[in-house]
C-alpha cells in the first residue's frame, strides 16, 4: 500500500483487487449466498482495522483468507437462527476440505478469470437460466413457475449449465488447477 496517498482510497484499491476472489472463498467455506457479501465486508473491515498487523512479505489475499476462516469458524460456533451458514454440518465439511487441500490464491484467481470468460461464452438459453437464477435471484421452484417447468427439471438444467462451465474452466486452466 502506498502510504503517501489517502489510506482509505488505497485500501479501496486493495479491496477492488481482491473482493471477487475473497467472496468466492467465503462461499466455499459454506456461507449462505445471502450472507456472502456481509461476511466478506466484515473480513475486509477486520483487515482494515488491523492493518498494522499485516506482514507485507505475505500475500494480502492469504492474510484475508486467514481472517475469513476465523470469521466463518466463529459463525459455525453460533447457535440457532442467527447463523449465516448454508448448514452447519455442510459448512464443517467444506471447511475441512479447504484445510485438507489448501487451494492456492493463484488457483482461485485463475479459476475466477477462466469462469468469467466461460460465462461470457454460454449460449443464449443457458445465459437466460443463469440470469434468472443469479440476477433475478429466483430459486428453482420460482424459476419453474416462470418457465412452466417443474422445480426438479430446472435444478437439473442449472446443474447441466454449471457442468458446461466446469468443463470449460478445466479446458482453460487444466483439471488439476481447480481449487
Amino acid at each position, binding site marked *: 500500500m502506498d502510504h503517501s496517498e489517502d489510506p*482509505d482510497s488505497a485500501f*479501496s484499491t486493495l*479491496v*477492488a483487487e481482491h*473482493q*471477487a476472489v475473497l*467472496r*468466492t472463498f467465503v*462461499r*466455499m467455506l459454506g456461507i449462505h*449466498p445471502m450472507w*456472502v*457479501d456481509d461476511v*466478506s*465486508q466484515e473480513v*475486509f*473491515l477486520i483487515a*482494515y482495522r488491523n492493518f498494522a498487523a499485516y506482514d507485507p512479505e505475505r500475500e494480502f489475499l492469504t492474510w484475508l483468507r486467514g481472517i475469513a476462516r476465523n470469521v466463518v469458524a466463529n459463525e459455525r460456533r453460533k447457535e440457532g437462527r442467527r447463523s449465516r451458514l*448454508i*448448514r452447519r*454440518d*455442510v459448512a464443517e*465439511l*467444506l471447511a475441512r*476440505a479447504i484445510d485438507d487441500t489448501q487451494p492456492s490464491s493463484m488457483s482461485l484467481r485463475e*479459476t*475466477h478469470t477462466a*469462469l*468469467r470468460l466461460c*460465462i461470457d461464452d454460454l449460449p443464449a438459453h443457458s445465459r437466460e437460466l*443463469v*440470469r434468472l*437464477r*443469479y*440476477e433475478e*435471484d429466483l*430459486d*428453482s*421452484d420460482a424459476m419453474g413457475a416462470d418457465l412452466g417447468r417443474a*422445480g*426438479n427439471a*430446472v*435444478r*437439473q438444467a*442449472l*446443474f447441466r449449465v*454449471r457442468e458446461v*462451465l*466446469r468443463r470449460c*474452466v478445466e479446458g482453460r486452466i487444466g483439471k488439476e488447477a*481447480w*481449487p
Partner: protein
Amino acid sequence: MTAQTPEELISLVLDGHPDSADIARLLRAIDEDPRLLRLMRQHLIISEVASQVVAPERRCEPFIAGMWQRHRAEQDALAYTERVMSKIRHERTRAIRAAKSLVWEIGGMSAAALLLVSLMMLTVRSVAERMPMAPVAENAENVDAERVPRALDLRIAAFLQRRSVE
C-alpha cells in the same frame, strides 16, 4: 423433497430448499465418495462467480461502497456507545459523590446535635448544682430521721418569730 442422485442433492443445496433428510443423504453420499465434495465445491464456486458477473448489486463498486458505509455506521455506533458510557460513568461518579456528601452531612449534623446535647446537659448540671434542693427520700432507709423534724422546727420558729414581730 426427495432427491435421488448425489448430483440432485447438490442441486437441491445450491438451488432449492433441502430438508434435514436430504442433507443427511448428501453427507452420507460424500462420505462414500469424497469426489462429490470436490464437485459440490466447484459448483459453489461457479454459482458465486456467476452471481458476481450477472447481478448488478454484486459488482465491485456497490460492494466497496457498502463496506465503507458499514464502517462509518460501526464507527458512529462505537462513538455513540462511548458517549453513553461516558455519561453513565459521570452519573455513577456523581451518585457516589452525592452519597459521600450525604454521609458527611449526616455525620456533621449528628456531631453538632451531640455537642448541643452535651452543652445542655452541662448547663443543666451547673444550674442544678447552684439551686438548693430539698432532700429526696427515695426510700425509708435513706431518710435522715433527725434532719426532717429540724427543718420543720426551723420553719415553725421563723413563722412564730415573724408573728411576734407583727
